[in-house]
């Protein structure tokens, strides 16, 4: 069960005959309603040549259909003061619209339309190509993005997690409208989607409206398992990137288990001990930035000691084995060898001794209390319910909390010994070249 005091609304769940899973989470007093459509498609479903297709299709679903011309969807939402957006991940693509509650029909109308009828024309694909290039270029301005992209590329040789969700530059240049349409036809449709409605609505008439709008859609949408299995790491891998920046920067990654793995709760606790806060129990629509936590091991051993200005760990458990990472930005005058040695010493200490009883007690408190308000607001509620349901099942959240609170210090130490091994790590260093180099 989720910890005491968590006010998660009751969820009514049903599946339409075409395979669409629907989750209704009413909170009658809410002035807004949030409609989320989650598709189990992400960069995991791509292959070289069409990397970035999931993200590009996400953009194209705003570019019109025979029934809703380009821009009509966003315009209709904004005209009633609503918010509309979407995001793509390795394992899913999510679309959300939050509107004042009296406008619930609006997102239901266009989500049922674009689930199977997006146009994806040659003309719009050509125009969007530069927009996506520009999105990628904006990210490339940040060394952190370049390092993370390199880290995953180095860590995975077979599995699709090796490329960034935005796709490779060359693929963005070459991909055609035909390829995007084919991708959309294959993966989009009720069978591969979860519809979540959260907030101020009456569930009975809403269920009727959902059935009316979505039941007749064809049973399209493949939930395709990734067949490529990444072989176990066979030794350390390293790379060095150089470019403009501030101070040396470092990311270290280790192969991590999938979301539903037995050792996942222990590794989530390990992430919290090392970095301060785990992403799974953070509230909010989009993952909050990690706050500095002065009890976190990396903070104490790197930031407090003057070796780094920022240091944290990060792990988003995914459907398939992924990477557990540590990131550190050096303080001025600290070189990468010193920084990396300090990271290794910190991790090694956890491998040898595990967390202290005090750390375990702190983490349990943080998990229990941090969860309490995570369901405030229709948008956050729609996100959390959809996230767990899409990646695994709604009960996964309950089971995770239950197991997280029972993780022992030994289990955390064992997880560190199993996963964070020196001979399986991937290290990417970023060496800034010169100063700001402006003319």
């Amino acid at each position, binding site marked *: 069960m989720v910890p005491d005091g968590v006010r998660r609304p009751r969820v009514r769940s049903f599946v339409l005959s075409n395979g669409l899973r629907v989750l209704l989470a009413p909170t009658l007093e809410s*002035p807004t309603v949030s409609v989320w459509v989650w598709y189990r498609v992400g960069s995991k479903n791509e292959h070289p040549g069409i990397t970035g297709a999931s993200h590009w299709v996400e953009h194209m679903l705003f570019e019109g259909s025979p029934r809703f011309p380009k821009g009509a969807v966003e315009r209709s939402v*904004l*005209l009633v*003061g609503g918010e509309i957006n979407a995001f793509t991940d390795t394992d899913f693509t999510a679309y959300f619209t939050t509107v004042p509650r009296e406008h619930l029909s609006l997102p239901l109308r266009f989500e049922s339309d674009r689930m199977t009828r997006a146009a994806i024309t040659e003309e719009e694909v050509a125009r969007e190509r*530069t927009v996506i290039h520009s999105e990628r270029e904006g990210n490339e301005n940040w060394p952190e993005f370049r390092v993370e992209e390199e880290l995953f590329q180095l860590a995975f040789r077979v599995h699709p997690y090796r490329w960034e969700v935005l796709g490779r530059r060359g693929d963005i240049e070459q991909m055609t409208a035909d390829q995007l349409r084919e991708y959309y036809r294959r993966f989009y449709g009720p069978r591969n989607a979860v519809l979540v409605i959260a907030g101020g609505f009456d569930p009975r008439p809403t269920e009727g409206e959902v059935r009316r709008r979505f039941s007749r859609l064809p049973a399209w949408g493949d939930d395709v398992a990734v067949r490529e299995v990444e072989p176990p790491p066979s030794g350390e891998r390293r790379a060095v990137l150089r*470019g403009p920046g501030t101070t040396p920067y470092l990311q270290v990654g280790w192969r991590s288990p999938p979301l539903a793995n037995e050792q996942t709760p222990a590794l989530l606790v390990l992430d919290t001990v090392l970095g301060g806060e785990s992403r799974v129990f953070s509230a909010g629509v989009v993952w909050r930035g990690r706050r500095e936590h002065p009890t976190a091991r990396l903070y104490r051993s790197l930031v407090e000691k003057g070796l780094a200005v920022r240091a944290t760990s990060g792990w988003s458990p995914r459907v398939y084995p992924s990477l557990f990472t540590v990131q550190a930005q050096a303080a001025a005058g600290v070189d990468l060898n010193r920084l990396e040695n300090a990271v290794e010493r910190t991790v090694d200490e956890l491998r040898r001794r595990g967390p202290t009883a005090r750390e375990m007690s702190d983490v349990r*408190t943080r998990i229990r209390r941090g969860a309490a308000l995570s369901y*405030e607001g229709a948008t956050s509620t729609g996100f959390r319910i959809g996230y767990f349901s899409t990646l695994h099942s709604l009960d996964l959240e309950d089971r995770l909390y239950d197991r997280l609170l029972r993780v022992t210090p030994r289990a955390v130490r064992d997880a560190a010994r199993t996963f964070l091994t020196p001979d399986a790590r991937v290290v990417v260093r970023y060496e800034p070249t010169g100063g700001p180099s402006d003319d």
Partner: protein
Amino acid sequence: MTSSTDPLRLEYGALANGLSIVRQPPPPGAASFSATYIGPAGWGFDRRGEEGTARIASYLLPSGAGPYDRIELARYLDRAGATLTSECAPESAEVTIWGPSEDWRRLLRLLAEVVLRPRFAADDLERVRRQMAERQLREVSQPASRADRELFRATFPSGHPYRTAGLGTARSVGRVTTETLRNFHHRHYLSGEALLVATVPAHLRSVESVAGHLFSSIPETGGPDLPMPPVRSHRPRRLDVNLRGRSQVEIRIGGNSVARSDPDYPAAFLANEVLGGRAQLSRLFQRVRERGGLVYHASSELEAMRFGGYWSVGAGTGPERYEKVLGMLHHEIQEISRRPVPATELREVRESSIGEIPLALETTAEAHELAVEVAYHRQPPDFLLRWSSLLRTVTPDDLRAAVARAMDERNATTVVAGPLMAR
């Protein structure tokens, strides 16, 4: 005495020492509480040669206060399921606590400790100095922050609060001591100009009573004066900053603007929304991104603060496209300056702005942000209820007149920063 339950209707009170208390009812169904203390402690108050002091003080507030060192404070917050954040801006600094409603009294007590009795420990100061040094480097080497920096430096004169991001220099930050911080804290946090805003399921009187005990040590003094050197208008100009090795060029066009209290503000607000503020409905998004397919982001901002403001149009694009994008941005600024906005477009943007109010009341944290803004700008307690009708009185002529004052293209500075092609 009845107490409002509408989060759009604030209630104003004050303590005997002059500290203003603002109470906002939480949104329906919300289970959290939020309170913010705002002091005249922005970086505009930094003394010459000690630039960076305000930001360092703000960073250090959540790092230990009263009986709690930074670890004990973090554990206290964890036990309460609460968060504590501090922010610094040119005119003011604020500290916000958020947590479960039922604990609002003890969380308010903790906020008072943090605001009134910060520790400013020497080792924390050293840590923040290192972090500031890295941020100073980032500010000049990242195209987006560099473009902002050059725009503000070109727009505002030396000594003006909006001229910098308050990061200081290596030398000025090196001069800041714990004594400097304590003096700054005394002058700017324990000030008669401070405000306490609470979004809480309790009557204003209860909040005043609790706050009265906690904040009684604030002396009855007037607030410090924010130095505001006059901003001189200048001819349009362009600054190019070549940052080699980056992928994207960041563009900014902007200049000086009006304060929030300016009678033209509602019209200027709508003008900005039409131009680039109202996300996908705005001209910049529609014409530069959607029709032109040239950028991922193109938007505009009107930052109307208490004592003045600035406006800015921004976009990011590749090195081979920035001149074309720049031309389109200038064209859109000219359009809104020189031609009346069609009544239909104005109506749509206005109704969108009005329609979003329920979304701002989804959670306590979001509703609280609105309350803090209204309270800081000394707007009346029913301002949020009147905002819709204020917007509905704006005509296309008002909007054009507001653009001439609040987003004046004739005095605009253009900055491009990033990997530039030879011109």
